[in-house]
């Protein structure tokens, strides 16, 4: 379980996160939603030790994140940031094998190679494994990064806007893939996501942020309500039940 206690972060004199406390349950998809600049990405960065908070503590399975060895953490928690623009010419397999770095420091064993092949197969990129990343489409590239995270074999997976630059088909594929990870391997997934309907259909819990604070939090059905959404987005949003999914209409 991830527990954040009274986290605060300043950029200069500007408070981007203030007194945020949140608990994230294991074996579920938790989506962080909210308007731009709400501090969602910053929160994820602090939880994953990429960024040090100015105040507060993050506990990962009961242990203070910033007091643990970075290398050990890399075996429990993985994060993918917003832009995965790769300027380097790497093949899919090379990228995925980075995921084994925390275990082997680059000297891949037979077992590592096995894990890498499995991860590539899981996201259906076997045929493209020797292609360079810049030769792939956006959706394929995103899947390659997911495969890397799979190879990293962590209980917790944090994804910052994983649907960015994906068309509808690939966005759906991606979310189904994440759902499958939770069902197959019991992974705990945290997402920052902008499309409210994707959050509604695929996540177990939703955390809504605004101006550096959490303003609503709970099971998806409790958050996807017209009045709650109004308070988050300042927008009149109708919520309809369509084939057992709660769909927001806000156009």
């Amino acid at each position, binding site marked *: 379980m991830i527990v954040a206690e009274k986290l605060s972060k300043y950029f200069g004199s500007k408070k981007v996160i203030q007194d945020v406390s949140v608990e994230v349950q294991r074996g579920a998809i938790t989506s962080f939603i909210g308007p731009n600049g709400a501090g969602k990405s910053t929160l994820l960065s602090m939880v*994953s030790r990429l960024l040090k908070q100015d105040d507060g503590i993050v506990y990962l399975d009961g242990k203070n994140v910033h007091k643990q060895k970075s290398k*050990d953490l*890399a075996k429990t928690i993985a994060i993918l*940031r917003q832009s995965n623009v790769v300027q*380097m010419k*790497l093949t899919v397999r090379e990228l995925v094998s980075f995921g084994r*770095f925390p275990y082997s420091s*680059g000297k891949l064993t037979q077992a590592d190679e096995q894990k890498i092949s499995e991860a590539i197969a899981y996201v259906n990129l076997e045929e493209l494994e020797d292609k360079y990343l810049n030769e792939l489409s956006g959706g394929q590239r995103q899947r390659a990064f997911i495969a890397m995270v799979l190879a990293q074999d962590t209980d917790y997976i944090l994804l910052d806007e994983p649907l960015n630059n994906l068309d509808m088909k690939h966005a759906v594929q991606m979310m189904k893939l994440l759902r499958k990870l939770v069902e197959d391997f019991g992974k705990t997934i945290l997402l920052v996501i902008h499309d409210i309907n994707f959050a509604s259909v695929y996540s177990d819990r939703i955390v809504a942020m605004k101006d550096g604070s959490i303003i609503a939090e709970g099971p998806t059905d409790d958050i996807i309500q017209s009045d709650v959404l109004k308070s988050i987005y300042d927008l009149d949003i109708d919520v309809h039940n369509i084939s057992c999914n709660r769909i927001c209409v806000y156009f």
Partner: protein
Amino acid sequence: MKLMYLVIVTVLLAGCSLFVGVENVTFSGLWNREAEAWNIVMISRLPRMLSIVMAGVSLGICGLIMQQLTQNKFVSPTTAGTMDWARLGILVSLLFFTDASPILKMCIAAAFALFGTLLFMGILQRLKQKDTIFIPLVGIMLGNVVSSIATFFALKFDLVQNMSSWLQGDFSLIMEGRYELLYISVPLLILAFLFANMFTVAGMGEDFATNLGLPYKYVVNIGLIIVAIITSVVILTVGVIPFLGLIVPNIVSMYRGDHLKKSIWHTGVLGALFLLVCDIAGRIIIYPYEISVGLMVGVIGTGIFLYMLLRRNAYA
């Protein structure tokens, strides 16, 4: 392109390099153990060949490490100002430590080069605009400022003659006893090879590297220290050799990709090969005189660089 072929061509050229020069050395002369021929080879030709190979390998790999760590294909010891800082360091050591041993000179030059490169990296982190072309331009500007300062003090203290010998790479003065400093680069290159995987991961960016548990700052610093020392050693013994650190890693990247484990040896060997070609050509073109290798590399390098730029665009 197989590494084996590259190595064979390089060895052949290195062999040729021994027999090019004003004093006629022939293979049969060496075979018949003529003392004269052996003297020339041992005192002049062999040191020259060895220093070309070492400088070529070192500069290629230095460029590769810098391009990787800055995530920019146009950064190299030349375009980041590392070479200019090293020259300023040499000037300082000439001014204040007149009788300095080569090792002390190298240490001072390396310290300056390291400081300059760290400064460049610091500026790079603060830059809002991470444009690919903009970054090396900043480095070149910084380098030119430093270089002007060096020239000013060199003028003031009558050291221009001295300084200019480090301005342009030249192998013609290399002789036994004047190039051994270059051997320092050998253990550093081995170290670079051991860190190859980590440099590759670091090249993916700080967040990416931290996520994988890599001590990012530590790895970057190791890389920059290796680059600073090697660059200083090369400048002290041979002089500034432009472009090599820029184009050789780019050529290798085209056919081997950017994983250092796959590209580091190719880059080293191709660096040596490139420098050997430039040096031999420089010695033949206006025989019995010779064109300094710095100039040759500049001319040939510009050509290749232009071709690369145009080709890149065609594929982008």
